[in-house]
């Protein structure tokens, strides 16, 4: 690593560059602002590819070594997709009236890049917390309706930060090293680090924050949110806990949790939020399997997922922007007047379902095949069932209920050209990666020993998905949505917690009132006694005749005399 790079480092650290761009953007207006919005992520992307592999800028601090910059294949892969995502999100959000949203989203994206290029745990932690703060501000940009969800979101993430910091402190105490490398959850400290990472991955049982908060953000804010927090968590799990067996099972639970809740959901953006948990479940399972093939699968799945999930949420965001509605029960039939949004939504839906010729197919099949090559029978059968379920809950359900279904009578046109351009860019990437996977395979962490387009792969995937589609249309009556939500683990702190607090509060109030009542009565009794004796009518306040005083004085003197002579 050259000394020149170390000197330049703060100015070329990809995360800091994007954060600085966000800070500057807060003050900019007009065309200059639009130019910076579009240029900043591209400059960051360029930096990521010109900076050499290795570490730089090491700082000695309290006897430890901080490594603010470390680049390798894995970090470059995530850095690449994060900057593409920031660019597409910035383009999509150019029309956003709340002008602070995109700058805050850039700081959020920059913080994610900070984690991705961090070489030590303290740097990871600092950017981790910055991500939590910036993403909460992005949620709050949606206004009053998002306030409660944002509050719950930040509390959960600060809790995750506490777990992570406690784990890091323990890890440093045990090993004496800050370095962020592969570890195992074999000590309480490393277990806490894993828990902190998993919380950001929306791992069950603490998944509810994601479908609670993300769909409350604005039509453009949700697009940013879908990309960074969970996928940064996937990155740190890949870096730190590859092959940790418990992740296989946590990932499978997440995959099915996402499907079941999305099937029951009515709000289109919440359907897509549950489906993030489902997709991250596949990645977490791949990380748990831990073979080179499965890790490549998890990493490439994260890459393509960011793109097609953003595309799906852009398509949903366009519908929300044009109609102001998000519930499936209020939408339908929009294909008539929103052809580009419909087609882009369908491309995203086919990609998430891993249809052949889309990006999902060339990535996700590596995870499922990784399970097969390792002869993990139960895992393979569950992953395959979950793959069928993805088509059911996101692949058909989202486009069907939003763009087809009944005729809602709405006739909105496609959104403005900036939003259409962002969608077309990502749709192009989904198909492009699906048709030509080689460039993606070339930048994966391990050499790729996998051919996606074999007759067997294509036919089996088509059977799986098309028959899932058949099941969808045959059971359409059961899948019709009503205006309902489904309770989740967050019921514990949204309902049970406040109810318990109210109950304890009323209980303590009763006790306090009883005590206060007694106290008052005692005080009143004392006062009454004093008043009785000393008050105007009290025995001690009576006027005494001078005669009786003289009499008593004479009586006492006489008694004294008599006692003296006795």
């Amino acid at each position, binding site marked *: 690593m050259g000394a020149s790079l170390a000197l330049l480092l703060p100015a070329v650290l990809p995360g800091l560059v994007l954060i600085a761009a966000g800070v500057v953007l807060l003050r900019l207006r007009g065309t200059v602002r639009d130019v910076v919005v579009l240029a900043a992520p591209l400059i960051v992307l360029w930096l990521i590819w010109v900076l050499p592999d290795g570490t730089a800028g090491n700082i000695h601090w309290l006897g430890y070594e901080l490594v603010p910059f470390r680049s390798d294949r894995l970090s470059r892969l995530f850095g690449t997709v994060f900057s593409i995502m920031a660019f597409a999100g910035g383009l999509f959000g150019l029309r956003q009236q709340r002008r602070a949203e995109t700058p805050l989203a850039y700081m959020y994206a920059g913080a994610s890049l900070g984690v991705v290029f961090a070489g030590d745990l303290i740097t990871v932690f600092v950017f981790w917390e910055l991500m939590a703060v910036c993403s909460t501000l992005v949620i709050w940009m949606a206004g009053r309706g998002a306030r409660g969800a944002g509050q719950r979101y930040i509390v959960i993430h600060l809790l995750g930060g506490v777990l992570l910091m406690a784990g890091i402190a323990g890890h440093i105490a045990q090993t004496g090293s800050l370095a962020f490398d592969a570890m195992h959850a074999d000590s309480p400290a490393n277990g806490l680090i894993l828990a902190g990472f998993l919380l950001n991955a929306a791992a069950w049982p603490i998944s509810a924050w994601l479908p609670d908060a993300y769909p409350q953000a604005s039509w453009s804010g949700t697009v940013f949110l879908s990309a960074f927090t969970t996928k940064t968590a996937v990155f740190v799990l890949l870096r730190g806990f590859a092959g940790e067996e418990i992740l296989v099972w946590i990932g499978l639970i997440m995959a099915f949790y996402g499907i079941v809740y999305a099937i029951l959901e009515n709000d289109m953006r919440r359907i897509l939020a549950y489906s993030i948990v489902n997709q991250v479940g596949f990645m977490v399972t791949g990380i748990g399997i831990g073979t080179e093939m499965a890790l490549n699968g998890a990493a490439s799945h994260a890459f393509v997922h960011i793109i097609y999930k953003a595309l799906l949420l852009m398509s949903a965001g366009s519908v929300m922007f044009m109609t102001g509605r998000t519930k499936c029960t209020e939408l339908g039939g929009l294909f008539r007047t929103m052809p580009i949004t419909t087609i882009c939504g369908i491309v995203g839906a086919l990609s998430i379902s891993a249809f052949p010729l889309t990006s999902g197919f060339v990535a996700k099949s590596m995870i499922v095949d990784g399970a097969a090559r390792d002869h993990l029978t139960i895992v393979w059968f569950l992953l395959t069932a979950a793959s*069928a379920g993805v088509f059911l809950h996101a692949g058909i359900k989202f486009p069907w209920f939003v763009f087809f279904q009944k005729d809602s009578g709405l006739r909105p046109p496609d959104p403005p050209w900036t939003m259409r351009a962002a969608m077309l860019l990502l749709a192009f990437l989904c198909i492009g990666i699906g048709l030509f996977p080689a460039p993606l395979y070339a930048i994966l962490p391990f050499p790729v020993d996998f051919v996606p387009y074999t007759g067997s792969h294509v036919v*089996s995937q088509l059977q799986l998905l098309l*028959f899932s589609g058949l*099941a969808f249309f045959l059971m359409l009556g059961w899948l019709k949505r009503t205006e309902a939500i489904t309770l989740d683990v967050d019921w514990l702190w949204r309902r049970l917690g406040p109810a318990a607090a109210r109950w304890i509060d009323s209980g303590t109030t009763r006790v306090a009132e009883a005590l206060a009542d007694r106290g008052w009565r005692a005080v009143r009794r004392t006062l009454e006694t004093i008043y009785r004796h000393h008050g105007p009518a009290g025995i001690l306040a009576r006027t005494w005749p001078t005669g009786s005083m003289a009499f008593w004085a004479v009586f006492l003197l006489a008694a004294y005399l008599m006692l003296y002579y006795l």
Partner: protein
Amino acid sequence: MPSADGKDYWLARPSTIRLLWVVFIVILALTVLADLFIDHHGDFGIDGTIGFYAWYGFVSCVVLVIGSKALGVLLKRKDDYYGR
């Protein structure tokens, strides 16, 4: 479902929908027939049999929908439950 001007898009006409079903079923049949000519070299035995992915995908989805409905009976609430 006619639109305001009396005629609807071809995609929403009942005749089109019937045609789409026919095409869909033909494609479904073709994907299963393709199994006769392709060796799936199944890793677990059963996954190499003809039409495995077809019935497995279908059954998985039916189970998922029924399971979700059952869970929904317990966990579904009006969407203003949390006072949004």
